[in-house]
């Protein structure tokens, strides 16, 4: 029967929506989100989300092939525009969203059983999460810088209610800080966008022919340089707030620790990187207009500041998810620093790092979610020791993911960190490379010390005889992401490799 319907509507679709690849990437999650508004059972909501993200992942892979074949894919009169960088981001968003929706089902089942949440709130999650993802897809696919800004704002708005989902005092506080700092940052980013527009129409008396990024980048060398400087500064502070760069990061640990674990995974896994993506589009314009020095040095400063601010905070945290949030700060800093060193190798390493981190960090947040349910807290003091005994499978996967996060081989983050550092040395930037190395070692020790406190040992008596019913909860999602990470760590397929190189060339196009 469904096949019959498909055969009926297919000619219509082909006739009126010719050659669409980008549009369905946006439509699939929005449709899933809106469908979940209807009174459907929880099981259906969960599978709608999973199916939507399987679809976007498939479309993302098709997009990858198209981008490799044609360089650029554009739709709706270039309203939607995807180059190698966008295609890479689409893959990351799809992957993390897929893992999250797989994990979220059982997670909220347990929350409902504990009475920590109401069914209406669970529905809110399954409606808002795909909309959050759709916003991120629009950020990376929009060509117009103003539309990109609106999409970033949309991601902030859709995620703030997710942060406040538990409606505890602390989660409301985190949500309030998140939306206030985020809105302020985004107001500055909007001002930056306005300044780019003004810099672009310096010589024209009429309206700008187009505010599309693809058009701007071709004429960026004629921009008014003073305006472009201010524009980049505003965008850096604005989108940098959303990306959690120090010192605008203060919302980040609060929001990550108070949100439900699936949302923390989305925030840390991709949302931060999507903000970096928006910043990169400005960085490319600024480099084309001012030469690479100006924006590069600013990025370097903020990146290194984030890298050095994170380790001490990792060491003093008493809450598992806050610790993970500061670890994300470290990785975001490294991505910025790698891009700021502006050699093909370091940019390639930074993009690779984005991907591997997107596969690693959600697993850690999922494990933290399982631990939080088993021990009814995320405070080390309450958890005590011996997580390995209480939740053996979760602990095993967590150790693997943590090994990846602190940069141990054979996981990909080891290779991407090595790429960035060796690229830095090769380009004669020994001082920065040594700084990166120091910061990485510091956070390595921090995470290791923190996890060694709770994982081994003898559990507290009240947790020792936990039923093992929840033993395999969330394992499929974690195994999916970790397995993908492991496969791509040892074997990066040629098309993917080529695509990341293309994306790196877009960022570091003009030296």
């Amino acid at each position, binding site marked *: 029967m469904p096949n019959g319907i498909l055969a009926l509507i297919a000619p219509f679709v082909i006739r009126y929506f010719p050659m669409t690849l980008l549009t369905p990437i946006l439509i699939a999650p929005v449709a899933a989100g809106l469908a979940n508004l209807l009174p459907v059972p929880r099981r259906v909501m969960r599978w709608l989300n999973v199916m939507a993200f399987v679809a976007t992942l498939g479309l993302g892979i098709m997009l990858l092939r198209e981008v490799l074949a044609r360089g650029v894919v554009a739709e709706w009169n270039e*309203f939607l525009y995807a180059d190698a960088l966008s295609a890479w981001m689409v893959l990351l968003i799809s992957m993390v969203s897929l893992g999250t929706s797989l994990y979220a089902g059982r997670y909220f089942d347990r929350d409902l059983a504990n009475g920590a949440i109401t069914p209406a709130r669970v529905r809110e999650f399954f409606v808002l999460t795909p909309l959050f993802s759709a916003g991120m897809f629009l950020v990376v696919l929009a060509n*117009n810088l*103003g*539309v990109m*800004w*609106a*999409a970033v*704002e*949309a991601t902030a*708005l859709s995620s*703030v*209610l997710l942060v*406040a989902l538990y*409606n*505890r*005092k*602390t989660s*409301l*506080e*985190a*949500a*309030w*800080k998140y*939306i*206030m700092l985020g*809105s*302020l940052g985004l*107001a*500055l980013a*909007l*001002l930056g*966008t*306005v*300044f780019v*527009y*003004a810099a672009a*129409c*310096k010589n024209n*008396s*009429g*309206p*700008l022919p187009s*505010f599309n990024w693809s058009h701007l980048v071709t004429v960026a060398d004629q921009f*008014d340089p*003073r*305006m472009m400087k201010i524009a980049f500064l505003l965008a850096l502070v604005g989108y940098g707030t959303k990306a959690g760069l120090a010192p605008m990061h203060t919302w980040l*640990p*609060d929001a990550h*620790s*108070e949100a439900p674990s699936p949302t923390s995974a989305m925030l840390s896994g991709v949302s931060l990187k999507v903000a970096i993506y928006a910043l990169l589009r400005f960085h490319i314009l600024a480099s084309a207009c001012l030469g690479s020095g100006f924006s590069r040095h600013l990025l370097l400063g903020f990146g290194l500041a984030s890298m050095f601010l994170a380790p001490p*905070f990792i060491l*003093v*945290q008493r809450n598992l998810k*806050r610790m993970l949030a500061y670890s994300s700060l470290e990785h975001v800093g490294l991505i910025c620093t790698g891009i700021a060193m502006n050699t093909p190798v370091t940019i390639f390493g930074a993009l690779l790092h984005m991907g591997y981190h997107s596969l690693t960090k959600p697993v850690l947040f999922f494990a933290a979610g399982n631990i939080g349910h088993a021990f009814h807290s995320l405070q080390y003091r309450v958890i005590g020791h011996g997580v390995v005994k209480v939740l053996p499978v979760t602990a095993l996967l967590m150790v693997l993911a943590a090994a990846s996060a602190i940069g141990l081989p054979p996981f990909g983050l080891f290779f991407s960190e090595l790429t960035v550092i060796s690229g830095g040395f090769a380009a004669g930037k020994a001082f920065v490379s040594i700084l990166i190395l120091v910061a990485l070692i510091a956070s390595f020790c921090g995470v290791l010390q923190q996890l060694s406190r709770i994982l081994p040992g003898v559990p507290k008596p009240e947790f020792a005889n936990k039923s093992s019913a929840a033993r395999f909860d969330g394992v499929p999602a974690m195994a999916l992401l970790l397995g993908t990470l492991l496969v791509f760590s040892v074997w990066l397929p040629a098309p993917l490799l080529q695509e990341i190189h293309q994306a790196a060339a877009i960022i570091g196009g003009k030296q």
Partner: protein
Amino acid sequence: MNPPPSAELGPQLITLMAALMLVLQLLLAVQPMLFTSVRLFAIQSLFLAGIAGVVAFFDDASEVYVVVVLTVIGKVIFLPWLLNRQLRRIKIAQEVEPLFNAPATIMVCGGLTLLGYLVARPFTSLERLGNNTLAIAITLVLTGFFMMINRRKAISQVIGLLTVENGVMLAAIALTTYGMPLVVEFGIFFDVLVAVMILGILIYRIRETFASMDTSKLNQLKG
């Protein structure tokens, strides 16, 4: 030396209305009554719409009329109505104990205005409309930030954020002859509406949970 009046009238009107926006901003910064704040914000937005209207009329840019309509519907009518409804529901009329008292607030705002003019000075030659419009826009952004720091009631912070947004839109009009492309204007318009609605939901929940909307009580998360 005597240009025809029609050529001068537009910029003069814009300068006048921009100046009035600044005056309203200073009033907003000092006065504590929340209902009045909402009304002042509505009038400020009306002047913003007026500036856009002058641009549309004198530069013959019919597209900009859409901006006028959006601003009037969104910021002059809908948002003030929404904020007023919320204020009635939570029954709080007055801001308590701002960080700075009124004279100090005026001093700070004066300093921020000077700063705004300083920042805008290199660009006065690029301004297309009126005098000082960009300087006032930057001042609105800065004082809006200051209001958000200074005030403790959640709704006051939202109004501060909205005036920042007014400043950004004024900058957009000051720097670009025809404003931003329409699709961007629509995007910004809906984002602001949704933002205020979501902030409303959050304020309501904060009030239910804390029995207060004093944001200085949101102080448990540290480090």
